[in-house]
């Protein structure tokens, strides 16, 4: 069923009785052309683009819980293309372009809001780094603008320009950056994939990967064995466990990233503001909650919950940067499990097992990557070739030293 404003009105007049299911609940078939393990944002987008771009529709997405129950439903919804290193630049640039057409492509309002992202800097050295980044963005064909202190003040006057611990020198303004409604992205891709014939199979946990003679032939699941000659592992947060089923060790350690939302408030923060010195970022959801977060908890974890030291650090950062949020009350905190790689950049690649592909290692930046990740993973699975904009996301780059270390923090999984 096509969605539109007119449909909302006509349905409303008749008691909303005519809305059909957003997707089916199919039983798994014994065999598919391809299987995507993981019904999160990346997995659903992969399925969608396999169907849409490559005409592969006899495929299934296997999700152990309900679709969108991983990090796509547990993030701070920021969308941006402001990377500095070649390899990342082109990928996130491509992703942002896909975001800009997502609503049309999916016929689903994901509330992609290009309200702008402002990265603050607090010293001359940080300004130089921001300028380098901004120029890289422009060289890539994206947008960036340098704000001085007064330029920042004009946009976000509520910052503490007088007393904050690390004075605000200026900011890098990425106007095409912004936010989106995270769940809607999962639902939109799910609905889009389902409409094209993809089987979305929920409550179906993969328990084994069947490999014969060095190639993948199917998977074992809690709902029985399913055969397929192509299998994509798209399970960020659990990549290590799924890869282990294929006898692989990945360059990934799982960590918990906490985030927070306040009670609903009238509009007060209009952009996404990031405070690098304090590891703090914030935006306001359309419902009115301030959505904010900071760094990962720094210890390996699968608990999807964190501890107080990072909670307090994030709040203290908020109080030094924008003490006007002091009276807002945190309503809820949560933790997502992040695939942290040794250089902070992701992996979209073949594996040593023929027909088995991996899309993983999104660190804490996976949300904005959803469309391009799906696009490139679909390309890889369909053609066997790495997509041009994901050509650096190789599995063996750590071993060879061809790193994509945006932060320059080195081969330590938790520092990116």
């Amino acid at each position, binding site marked *: 069923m096509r969605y539109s404003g007119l449909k909302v009105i006509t349905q409303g007049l008749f008691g909303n009785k005519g809305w059909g299911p957003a997707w089916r609940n199919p039983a798994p078939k014994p065999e598919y052309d391809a299987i995507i393990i993981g019904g999160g944002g990346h997995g659903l987008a992969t399925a969608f683009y396999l169907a849409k771009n490559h005409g592969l529709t006899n495929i299934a997405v296997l999700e152990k819980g309900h679709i969108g129950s991983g990090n796509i439903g547990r993030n701070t919804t920021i969308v941006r293309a402001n990377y500095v290193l070649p390899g990342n630049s082109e990928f996130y640039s491509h992703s942002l372009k896909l975001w800009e057409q997502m609503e049309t492509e999916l016929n689903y309002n994901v509330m992609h809001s290009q309200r702008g992202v402002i990265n603050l800097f607090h010293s001359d050295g940080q300004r130089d780094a921001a300028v380098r980044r901004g120029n890289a963005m422009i060289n890539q064909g994206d947008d960036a603008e340098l704000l001085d202190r007064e330029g920042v003040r004009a946009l976000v006057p509520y910052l503490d320009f007088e007393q904050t611990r690390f004075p605000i020198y200026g900011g890098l303004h990425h106007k095409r950056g912004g936010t989106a409604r995270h769940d809607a992205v999962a639902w939109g891709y799910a609905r889009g994939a389902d409409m094209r014939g993809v089987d979305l199979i929920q409550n179906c946990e993969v328990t084994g990967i069947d490999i014969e003679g060095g190639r993948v032939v199917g998977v074992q699941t809690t709902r029985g064995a399913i055969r397929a000659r192509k299998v994509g592992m798209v399970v960020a947060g659990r990549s*290590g*466990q799924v890869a282990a089923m294929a006898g692989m060790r990945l360059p990934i*350690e799982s960590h918990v990233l906490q985030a927070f939302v306040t009670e609903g408030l009238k509009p007060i923060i209009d952009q996404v503001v990031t405070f690098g010195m304090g590891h703090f970022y914030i935006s306001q959801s359309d419902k009115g909650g301030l959505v904010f977060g900071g760094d990962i908890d720094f*210890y*390996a974890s699968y*608990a999807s919950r964190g501890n107080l030291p990072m909670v307090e650090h994030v709040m203290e950062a908020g109080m030094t940067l924008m003490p006007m949020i002091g009276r807002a009350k945190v309503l809820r905190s949560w933790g997502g499990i992040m695939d942290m790689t040794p250089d902070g950049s992701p992996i979209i690649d073949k594996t040593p097992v023929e027909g088995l592909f991996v899309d993983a290692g999104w660190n804490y930046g996976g949300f904005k990557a959803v469309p391009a990740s799906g696009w490139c993973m679909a390309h890889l699975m369909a053609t066997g070739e790495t997509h041009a904009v994901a050509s650096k996301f190789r599995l063996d780059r750590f071993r060879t030293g061809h790193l994509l270390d945006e932060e320059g923090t080195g081969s330590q999984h938790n520092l990116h």
Partner: protein
Amino acid sequence: MRITCPLCGPRDRREFYYYGSEDYLTQPEVGDLDAVDAQLHLRDNVAGRVRDVWYHEAGCASWLVVTRDTVSHAVEKVELVANVKGILAKTKLKGGAA
């Protein structure tokens, strides 16, 4: 989260710095890229019992091997790195011209 430092006793997580898996304790030999990969990158990344390396940064400056559960966050054992047997044996140290 609280970690019982063998020297300082039970302390809040905020006093500690986390490095990563105990794989970091194995220093690779020059030329052995598999060992470099194993030390720096590849991880079992277990959802369950792990041994990882922490530093009592705000305390006694001891490096620790902490045996704990990544799902429950329960801490089972804390040892001084310096007392963990086998690290030196695993590390074929070539440094130190003196």
